[in-house]
């Protein structure tokens, strides 16, 4: 069995966990990663919802599990050729691998906030993204975050919005927003924190508790209504407009900081890999699974598997669970079908 090599594309949580499971099943996984870092988005994050677990600790655990696995950083795939059931993969450094299966774990990209022009990201100083706020929590360095007195969070930025061509829900932003709202309130207890939401999708274990905690202990004010536009006043403060849809009245307020809860989008450059592997996208632009019930980790192409947020927005626990199931699917494929 261990003669089989499996190529895992992407060294995020999905890739790492898949590799770990494949290794423990006696196979030889190889991870390739286009960036120079392991961990994907997890490496950028400080704490994880719903219970504010340390992201770094989780990443360390995931890394520890794959310390015997060959990981190629700064590598891209130049070419894939399928011969029988073997994939001949050529990397950007012209190194080639012959692998029996490929697991695509390319994850997602955060929605590019500047695409939602009316929010003025990149134009108004104090408009930041969820990722930037998370970075601030890690480093405490961001000159835009300077003793804010009033902070707003906009949910669903780049999600559920036909005007940016993303009609799906990104699933994690609601919980992330409330987690970050609590954290920033913790940092600036005198600040008023508003969350502008359309629906609060607190579906997972502990999420509703997080919502209640945010309201009760952190005094986070949830306003039902999407922010429609942002501008800057003469003092350089942000002026936002939204409707309080529970009251049916439009409202206007000035903010010192606006955090955009950017949703998930398909990762850039994945299409190139999809073309090489002959696998399709679904209507949301993510990679299409064979079916969502029993073939979640399978694609229409034999020997090509998927795991994690490359198929749709997912939470971390879901991603990790999917990685484990992908390993089983690969094992089953190699031991039974081949």
């Amino acid at each position, binding site marked *: 069995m261990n003669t089989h090599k499996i190529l895992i594309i992407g060294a995020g949580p999905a890739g790492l966990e898949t590799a770990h499971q494949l290794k423990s099943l006696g196979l030889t996984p190889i991870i390739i990663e286009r960036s120079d870092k392991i961990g994907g988005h997890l490496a950028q994050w400080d704490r994880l919802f719903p219970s504010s677990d340390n992201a770094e600790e989780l990443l360390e655990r995931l890394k520890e599990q794959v310390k015997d696995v060959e990981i190629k950083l700064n590598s891209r795939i130049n070419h894939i050729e399928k011969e029988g059931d073997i994939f001949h993969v050529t990397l950007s450094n012209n190194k080639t691998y012959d692998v029996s299966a490929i697991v695509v774990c390319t994850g997602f990209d955060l929605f590019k906030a500047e695409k939602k022009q009316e929010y003025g990201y990149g134009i108004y100083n104090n408009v930041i993204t969820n990722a930037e706020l998370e970075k601030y929590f890690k480093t405490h360095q961001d000159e835009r975050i300077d003793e804010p007195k009033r902070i707003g969070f906009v949910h669903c930025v780049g999600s559920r919005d036909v005007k940016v061509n993303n009609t799906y829900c990104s699933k994690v932003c609601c919980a992330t927003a409330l987690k970050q709202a609590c954290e920033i309130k913790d940092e600036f207890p005198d600040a008023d924190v508003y969350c502008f939401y359309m629906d609060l999708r607190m579906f997972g274990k502990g999420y509703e508790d997080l919502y209640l905690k945010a*309201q009760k202990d952190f005094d986070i004010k*949830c306003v039902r209504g999407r922010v429609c536009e942002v501008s800057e006043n003469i003092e350089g403060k942000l002026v936002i407009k939204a409707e309080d849809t529970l009251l049916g*009245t439009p409202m*206007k*307020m000035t903010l010192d900081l606006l955090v955009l809860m950017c949703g998930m989008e398909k990762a850039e450059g994945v299409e190139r890999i999809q073309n090489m592997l002959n696998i399709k996208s679904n209507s949301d632009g993510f990679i299409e699974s064979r079916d969502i019930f029993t073939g979640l980790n399978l694609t229409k192409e034999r020997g090509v598997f998927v795991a994690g947020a490359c198929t749709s927005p997912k939470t971390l626990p879901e991603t990790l669970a999917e990685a484990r199931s992908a390993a089983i699917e690969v094992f089953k494929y190699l031991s039974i079908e081949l």
Partner: protein
Amino acid sequence: MIDFGFSISKSSHIKMDDVDLKLFNKLEALNPDIKTCMACGLCTATCTAGKFTDVSFRQIILMLQRGKEKEAVEKVKKCMMCGKCMLVCSRGINTRNILLSITRIYNEQNI
């Protein structure tokens, strides 16, 4: 001043910067459970007085937070204090006492 037959109408926007939340903060300090409302509307749906009028606890506390105190108080005045809203509230908010606190803190003359 000239009468042109039309004039500047008041903006329908709630200007949150101008909303004075001093009284609401007082109310909130006395009744911290007010924060946990998730606008499910059970209180409004079950309201005894709501059968005859437009009383809505959910709207009342929202209006107070948005500076629409006059409208809120008009609704409060119609409450019969029966306590059904307290009995159904899915977040266990002591709605009845909040309504009482409102009648103590807010003053028709000053809003």
